Structures are given as C-alpha cells and as structure tokens.
C-alpha cells in the first residue's frame, strides 16, 4: 500500500485537483490555526492573572480597622476602631511562631516638591519589612531599615516615576524633597511590577509619620506575613485565631461584620487561581469545539470529494481497482493533505503567538503560548479523525457497483 508507485499516483491526483486539495487543506490548517491561537490566548490570559497577583507576596494578611455596627461589652455601636503601636507589639508577641514579619502602614497623600517641580503623591509610612510584602525592587540606594524606624529619620524612598517627574535626569539620591511641608532626604529609588501607580508612591518610616502627626502612636493598617510552611490550611487557622484575638482586645462583637477586616492574600490567590482555571477550562472547551468543527469540515469535504469522484472510481474499478486500493487511494490522499496542512496551520499559529508577545497586554493577554505537545496532539487528533471521516465515504464508494458508479454524471 505504501509503495513509491502508490505515492506517485496520489501526488499526481493531488497536483491535478488543486481546488479540492486547497479546500480540504485550508479547512484543516484553519482549524488547527484557530485552535493554537485560542489556546495560546487562554494561556496568555492566565499569564496576565499570574502577573497581576504575583506582584505582591502571597503569604500576607492586611488588617483594616473599621467602624463597629454592634454594641459589645458596654461599648456602643458605631465606634471607630483604631490600631496603635501596642496592637502591633501584642500581635508580634502572641503570634511569633506563625509570623515571618509584620509592618504597619499609614497612608497619606500630599504635595511633594523638589525645586520648581511639584506633584501630588501618596506616601506610605511603613516598616522595613514592607519591602517584602510589596516585592519592591530597589534600583538605586537602599530601602528603609530598623535604624530609620528607631531614630525616626526623615528619609524617603521614592518610586521610579516620582524620580522621573521631579528630578528628570538629575540624580535624586541625597537630595531633599518637601513632603507636605517636611523635608525628607531621598535614600533610594524603587521599581515595582505592579504597574505605574505603584511607582508613584513614596515610602517613609512609620515612626517619622507618627512624629510629624503630633507624636501619636496610631497605625492605619497592619500588614502581617505568615510563615509559608503553614500552608493554606495553617494560614486559614492563623487568620481565625488572629481575628478572635483582635476582636477580644479591641472589644469588637465576634459577629460584627464591620469592626475589623482581614484581607487574606492567600485566600484571594486561591480564588483567583480557581478563576483562572475556570477560564482555562472555557478556553479549552472553545478550542475543543474548534477541533470538532474542523473534523466536521474535513468530513464534509471528504463526502464531497468521494461524491465528485464516484465516476472516476467506477472507471478505476472497471479497469481493475480493488476495493482496498480505492479506499487506500482516498485515505492516503486525505491523510497526506491533512498532515501537511495541519502542521502548516500549527506552525503558523505558533508563529502568530510568538510574534504577539506583549502586544496584546492591554487586552489582558500576556505572552500567549501553547505547549508544543498540546499543539501536536491536537493536530494528530484532527488527522486521525479526518482519516476516519474519510474512511466511511471511501468504504461506501468502494462498495458501489462499478456499473452504478459509471452511470453517475
């Protein structure tokens, strides 16, 4: 069946029936192309997700005080809860085995001036460990350290875009900027994968912020990182006992939804990963549909091809073609065309994905790509089903009596 002569016969048939060859080849190539591109986009979407949520550390809790909505232990409802340095110290003391690090965070926004340049930026007053929570990358100089906290230094670490806005191309390290009326010395410049907004922040020691604000001990929020060894279940248990502890300490009704908020990044991450997985499932479903459509397309073409060739097959049978050779001719022709065009479609698809890269980032598609194994698997599936789809009409054609086939016009 696979002699050189047979192949030559098949090549001649393919060459001399260009439209037919083109139609079946085009269907298959298009099917695979769409499959590869869709699947790649799906992966691109997931990459975007990973980028989004991979920007911050994932073993982090954010504690936000709220306003109570229930009375508790003699306290009225509608009471504003505030954190202070003592709360942070208590957490550090009571939960030491679980904690990797902790840092407070105080948000302020204000005018920042350097010489003639000025702009509004938000300032985050934090501790040194905040660098890990935010995964801040230092470009120049250094981040805040423990000495800065202890000595309440007027040092600032500014974002890449803050430096660009205020200093242009001039060097910023060692210069003094005016932040809402106080002079701070720039000790470092950072970048952040979280996007432009992240790079328009300024970090200062939280003790300095408290000093400026009448030397109080208030904290806006507390950021805690648990030890990664705890795992997901451990983190959830930690969150629960932390919640109980803080509600007890701050006199918040355990059932009060508004007194205290804990944002658990690990939990969010898990949800987001689930969302991404569902997205991938949907994309895979659509891609699978494309393959099915491709199979139906090639089946239709095969039915048409056999119908069109009925008379020719009758002539061949009258001249001595056996049913086997009739089926063989049709099948080999179809397999040959689907294989070649399938792989062409696959390569074009991979090429398109490769050339896109970051270009579709605005549409939440980052680095679309497809695993070569998946692409080849899909192509082979299409080839096999194309052959199967060709086999049924081919077998029917081989069974038609030559006299019937010859009468076909």
């Amino acid at each position: 069946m696979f002699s050189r002569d047979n192949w030559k016969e098949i090549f001649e048939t393919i060459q001399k029936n260009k439209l037919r060859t083109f139609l079946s080849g085009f269907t298959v190539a298009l099917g695979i192309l769409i499959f590869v591109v869709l699947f790649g986009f799906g992966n691109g979407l997931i990459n975007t997700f990973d980028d989004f949520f991979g920007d911050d550390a994932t073993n982090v809790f954010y504690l936000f005080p709220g306003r109570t909505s229930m009375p508790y232990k003699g306290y009225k409802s509608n009471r504003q809860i505030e954190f202070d340095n003592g709360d942070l110290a208590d957490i550090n003391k009571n939960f030491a085995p679980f904690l990797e690090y902790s840092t407070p965070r105080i948000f302020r926004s204000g005018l920042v001036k350097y010489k003639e340049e000025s702009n509004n930026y938000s300032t985050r007053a934090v501790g040194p460990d905040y660098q890990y929570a935010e995964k801040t990358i230092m470009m120049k100089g250094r981040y805040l350290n423990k000495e800065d906290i202890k000595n309440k230094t007027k040092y600032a670490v500014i974002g890449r875009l803050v430096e660009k806005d205020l200093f242009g191309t001039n060097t910023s390290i060692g210069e003094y900027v005016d932040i809402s009326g106080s002079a701070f010395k720039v000790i470092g410049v950072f970048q952040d994968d979280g996007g432009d907004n992240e790079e328009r922040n300024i970090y200062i020691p939280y003790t300095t912020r408290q000093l400026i604000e009448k030397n109080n001990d208030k904290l806006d929020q507390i950021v805690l990182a648990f030890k990664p060894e705890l795992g997901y279940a451990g983190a959830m248990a930690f969150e629960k006992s932390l919640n109980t502890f803080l509600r007890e300490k701050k006199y918040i009704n355990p059932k009060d939804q508004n007194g205290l908020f804990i944002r658990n990044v690990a939990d969010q991450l898990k949800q987001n990963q689930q969302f991404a997985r569902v997205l991938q499932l949907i994309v895979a479903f659509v891609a699978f549909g494309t393959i099915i459509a491709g199979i139906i397309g090639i089946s239709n073409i095969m039915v048409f091809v056999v119908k069109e060739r009925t008379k020719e097959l009758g002539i061949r049978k009258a001249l001595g073609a056996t049913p086997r050779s009739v089926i063989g001719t049709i099948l080999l022709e179809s397999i040959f065309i689907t294989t070649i065009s399938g792989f062409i479609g696959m390569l074009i698809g991979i090429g398109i994905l490769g050339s896109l890269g970051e270009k579709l980032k605005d549409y939440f598609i980052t680095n679309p790509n497809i695993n070569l194994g998946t692409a080849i698997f899909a192509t082979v599936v299409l080839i096999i089903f194309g052959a199967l789809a060709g086999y049924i009409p081919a077998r029917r054609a081989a069974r038609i009596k030559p006299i019937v086939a010859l009468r076909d016009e």
Partner: protein
Amino acid sequence: MIEIKDLHKSYRMGSNSLHVLKGINFTAESGELVAIMGSSGSGKSTLLNILGMLDEADSGDYTLDGVPIKNLNETKAAKYRNKFLGFIFQSFNLINYKSALENVALPLYYQRIPRKERQERAMKYLGQVGLKEWAHHLPSELSGGQKQRVAIARAMAAEPKVLLADEPTGALDSTTSYEVMDLIQKINDQGNTILVVTHEDDIAHMCKRIIHLKDGVIEKDEKVTQVRASQYV
C-alpha cells in the same frame, strides 16, 4: 472463450420487478468479433455488463476462458476484470485529469507493473491507435474519435482475453465511427475476441457474427460476411 447458460437477470423497480434477461445461451470462440444487437430495453447492455463482471446475474452459468465466474467478491471481480477484460464505453470514460498516456497506463498500474514499463507499453498501444503525438494531452483537448481511440488503447493495454465495447460509436459521427470500427477490426485481425453492443445495422455488419436480442431472449444468432470499415475511411 465465453460460455453462458440460461442467464437470468431482473431489476427491482420499487414494488415491480423488471425481468430483463430471460434465459440467454451462447458461446463465443476465441478470435470472434460478435455484435449484440437489439432495440433499447432488449437487455443488450445488461448482458454486456454481466459479461464484464460489472453486474451480476441472478441465475445461470458464465465461464470465461475456462474460469467459472460465480460468487465473486469485489476484490476478485476487480482482479478478473483487470486480467480478462478490456472495456470500451460509449461515453469513453477517460479520467479527465489524466493525460492520454496516463489513462492508457492505468490498467497496468493495477497490475502492479513498474512505472517505466507501464509508460512504454502505454506508448506502444497509443502508437497502434495512431495517437503517439497526443500522448501528453488531456482528454478535454481531444476530439470524440480521438478519445475513443485512447479508450481502445487503454482496453488493449492490459492485453485482455476479451474486449467488450458498449456502443463504441454511439457518440460519434459516421466517418469517425468507421475509423473506430476499422481499428476494432484490425485488433480482431490480430486474434483478439471482441464483443460489440450496438443498435446500428451498419456497425453490426462490420462484425463477423450478429446476435439479435429481443425482450430478453436471443431472437436470432447469425454469421455474416464482414464489411470492412477501411473502404469507408
């Protein structure tokens, strides 16, 4: 060479059954040139199709060159057709995307003859029908007479025992018809057995024997003096 006994064939047409052949008996010796005549519906094409193993009889015996043709599966029928028979059709039945040479070489392909030998033999038979210069033309570039000559060359190429021609001149004008008959006569002169189905009297008289079919039975079986077609060409 050909021996048939009590051949019956009927076709189902919905609920009716149409009895086309009602017991045909005849023998044809090697080297004969037999015309099968009859009006349309007399069963002549059906008889030829059964002889050509393109169709099956309901009952009766058929022996071709000493081989009983019975209960053949498609594969075996295809092999016998290839070995024993050459077909010439009214509508030529050339494969339209293959050149004259490739059409002639096709039966040899199914005999698994190597490509080079196939080409040589096909060229030889194309030469015999006088179409050597047209070897690489497609059927669409040939006239009706040329197409039929290519078909004859194709039927000859496999060197079959019997040539079966179904209205070989049916689609041709009379001059071309005589050319084709001249060719068939010459092939017969070389000793080939040929059966020609026709409804034209002059064509039938260019054969050596005429079998008249009427309503599914042989009405008359006569030897005739052959009229040579060459005198009209």
